[in-house]
């Protein structure tokens, strides 16, 4: 694979370009891991159902030259409710402050380039938490992101700030000239008694292939409240591995919703480390797949301390020749007594070319726990379909109606109304066009 040599050159160039900082050291660690493990293949248990190594036959490039993205390009992709939001823009994996709009005041919200934060007053914080996710994600693709940490984002919601303006992150990949590899990296702190609403979306410009390999690390402190939404509705030429690692180090509440509509090969890693007694976490996911889309959701809830509660519900629909994968893992460590952990994965399969692979796992090392998981694979209810058709609703419309209702369970978990309505429209459109 010529890509490996390319990565090596690029890595050396990057390391030579700047001073030996803590981040540069982290990059070296990352690159060593990448060299050792290479890209994950289906032989790795965690990658059994998703093959990304073949994607790299396409020879992606980093887009190093200054990207030709205008504010008007961004207008086209703004999310509903953006008028009140802090909008952060990543282009080809790099945080571009010039294109971003920050509406909260500096005392409410701290936004810095990651390299800058690593130097100034947040040095210790960055040192302590950047790269924590590699304890859980040990594969080469995660290490590849770490090898190229550059122009990352540092975001901090200070103590007691109940941020009313949500944070929207737009990831833009410019694939108009070439196949583009983007590797955004972010580190987010939500301090004591603070509140953050965070949404990410992804857009690929042009018709060449784009690959986004993202790592987002979130640290949540005592009494903080975090809502995290990820909306994937990009072109079929857009593939991605998105790793979100949320570390709840104080007793806090986290609520996540991941919606995957269009895309090429998508892999979402969502890790929740419940590292304080009494943490509460809700994870929701929806994948509505058509064409040849391949969406793989891996969740991990690691209960390290007692009295934690977690609930997961992932629902999927696989049509055409698409593939839906769910792998949920709940670990209850020996100290995590009185854990309540629930997990449910439901799937509808609409075509004989479609595939659903699901693997809900429980690993329990403590006895005083209540854990359950369930998963189903099935079809639309024939009787419900008949009921609608008997009332003169055409078959296609009836199906859309039922699928919408099926998706609604997850949709209602998107709490901000403008965003919810926006996603509802996307879903309706997505389901109606066959």
């Amino acid at each position, binding site marked *: 694979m010529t890509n490996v040599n390319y990565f090596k050159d690029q890595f050396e160039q990057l390391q030579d370009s700047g001073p030996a900082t803590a981040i540069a050291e982290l990059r070296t660690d990352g690159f060593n891991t990448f060299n050792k493990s290479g890209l994950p293949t289906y032989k790795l248990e965690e990658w059994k159902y998703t093959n990304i190594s073949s994607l790299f036959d396409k020879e992606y490039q980093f887009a190093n030259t200054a990207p030709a993205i205008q504010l008007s390009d961004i207008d086209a992709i703004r999310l509903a409710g953006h008028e009140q939001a802090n909008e952060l823009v990543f282009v080809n994996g790099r945080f571009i402050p010039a294109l971003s709009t920050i509406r909260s005041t500096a005392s409410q919200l701290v936004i810095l380039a990651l390299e800058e934060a690593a130097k100034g007053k947040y040095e210790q914080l960055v040192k302590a938490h950047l790269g924590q996710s590699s304890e859980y994600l040990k594969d080469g693709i995660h290490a590849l992101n770490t090898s190229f940490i550059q122009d990352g984002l540092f975001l901090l919601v200070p103590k007691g700030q109940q941020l009313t303006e949500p944070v929207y992150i737009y990831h833009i990949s410019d694939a108009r000239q070439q196949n583009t590899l983007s590797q955004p990296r972010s580190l987010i702190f939500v301090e004591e008694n603070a509140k953050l609403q965070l949404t990410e979306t992804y857009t690929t410009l042009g018709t060449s292939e784009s690959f986004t390999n993202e790592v987002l690390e979130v640290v949540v402190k005592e009494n903080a409240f975090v809502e995290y939404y990820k909306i994937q509705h990009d072109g079929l030429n857009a593939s991605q591995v998105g790793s979100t690692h949320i570390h709840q180090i104080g007793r806090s509440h986290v609520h996540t919703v991941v919606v995957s509509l269009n895309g090429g090969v998508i892999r979402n890693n969502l890790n929740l480390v419940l590292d304080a007694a009494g943490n509460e976490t809700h994870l929701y996911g929806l994948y509505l797949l058509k064409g040849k889309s391949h969406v793989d959701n891996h969740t991990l809830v690691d209960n390290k301390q007692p009295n934690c509660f977690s609930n997961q519900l992932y629902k999927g629909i696989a049509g055409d020749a698409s593939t839906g994968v769910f792998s949920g893992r709940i670990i209850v460590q020996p100290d995590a007594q009185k854990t309540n952990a629930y997990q449910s994965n439901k799937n509808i*399969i609409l075509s*004989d070319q479609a595939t*659903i692979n699901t693997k*809900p796992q*429980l690993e329990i090392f403590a006895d005083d726990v209540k854990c*359950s998981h369930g*998963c189903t*694979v099935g*079809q639309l209810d024939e009787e419900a379909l008949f009921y609608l058709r008997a009332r003169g609703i055409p078959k296609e419309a009836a199906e859309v109606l039922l699928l919408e209702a099926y998706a609604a369970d997850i949709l209602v978990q998107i709490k901000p109304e403008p965003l919810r309505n926006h996603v509802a429209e996307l879903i309706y459109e997505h389901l109606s066009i066959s």
Partner: protein
Amino acid sequence: MNEDLNMLEQTALNEYKYGFVTDIDTDIIPKGLNEDVVTLISKKKNEPEWMLNWRLKAYAHWLKLEEPKWPNVKYPPINYQDIIYYAAPKKKEQLNSLDEVDPELLRTFEKLGISLNEQKRLTGVAVDVVMDSVSIATSFKEQLSEIGVIFCSISEAIQKHPDLVKKHLGSVVPMTDNYFAALNSAVFTDGSFCYIPKGVRCPMELSTYFRINAENSGQFERTLIIAEEESYVSYLEGCTAPMRDENQLHAAVVELVAMKKAEIKYSTVQNWYPGDKDGNGGIYNFVTKRGMCQGEHSKISWTQVETGSAITWKYPSVILKGDYSIGEFYSVAFTNHHQQADTGTKMIHLGKNTRSRIVSKGISAGQSQNSYRGLVRAAKGATNARNYSQCDSLLLGDKCGAHTFPYIEVKNKTAIVEHEATTSKIGEDQLFYCRQRGIDAETAVALIVNGFAKEVMNQLPMEFAIEAQKLLAISMEGSVG
């Protein structure tokens, strides 16, 4: 809670009751494995040329394989050159009645509570005793042969029914299937062979009691059951083993073939030496069991009660090839002390309108680790495939683990697959309810555990259900919190 902990400790001290070594001269070949040993085994069994070639081919393939590392169990590396691959009790002549069996051997079975005489007289069960790899006695053979049922040791079958063996051996579990299946194919010394002809409903439960005897001898059993069209057979397998310190490897292969409208019911009670309370010794039970629903409307049902072995690692599977075929798997796995179990099933739906059902109950106590690992696959052609899986775990201590790894792969839009799993400990309120009614804690726990396992126990044939309940009770005796 303190009381419960005390009881747990008592359980931990509860020693293996069936640990004794029977003193019979055994005819063994030296430790180690190479082509000569494979050839020697084949010669000792007086096997035809094709069988030897088959073994050698398997051995050659085994050399190319690496021992799998993926299961959720830990054990020191096995030295395959340190195992005796053949040990047979000295008596060689075929026996016609139990009177001819070595009295020492009979006493062993009496100690186990499995008196052949008793069984023969009272229960009408035909018993094919496997004592260290060679069948000693087969009872009720005449009665069975009248209706055309062949029930004998696999060695005898190779001599007397080579066509049947040649046709089916390795058809469900190919010699290249996995590491331990390849090893077994090369060195298997004995096992059972059943053939149920077309339209025959086997009038009695067929049963083999396994028994490991000579020190350091691994057991490599090979069982082959063939049910022809519209036949029925229920097969029981149970085992106990003497106490010893060195770990013993047991890598058996069981193959079931069910033709059109045939039904095979395979039940196992496994109580091999699990090691002492510190985790020393015990049997490694690495078994490949697989059934093939070859014909339409065929049915294969696995029921297992696993209480023994230091490590249990097996996945009795069903390949649902025939349309309308049915696969079932019922399992109770109890682990205590340092025992480890990684067990479950595979249901591979290939034919149309195939159905499968999985009920797995795991109970962990002490420092044991108990995993369920299962695969349900509905292939493209498996129209209307239906599966329901349920796996529940009960934790009886704060140092044990219960894990669930289900894999579900669906490639068909008419398939319906459901899986649910729960993990919990015995509810305080359940215990309280029982104790309030004057039931002591120990009985209450036994009652609750029994209820927990009932769905599986009910699947066992009557003769076995009693033994299984006894076993579960012994495993939990003086127990549990």
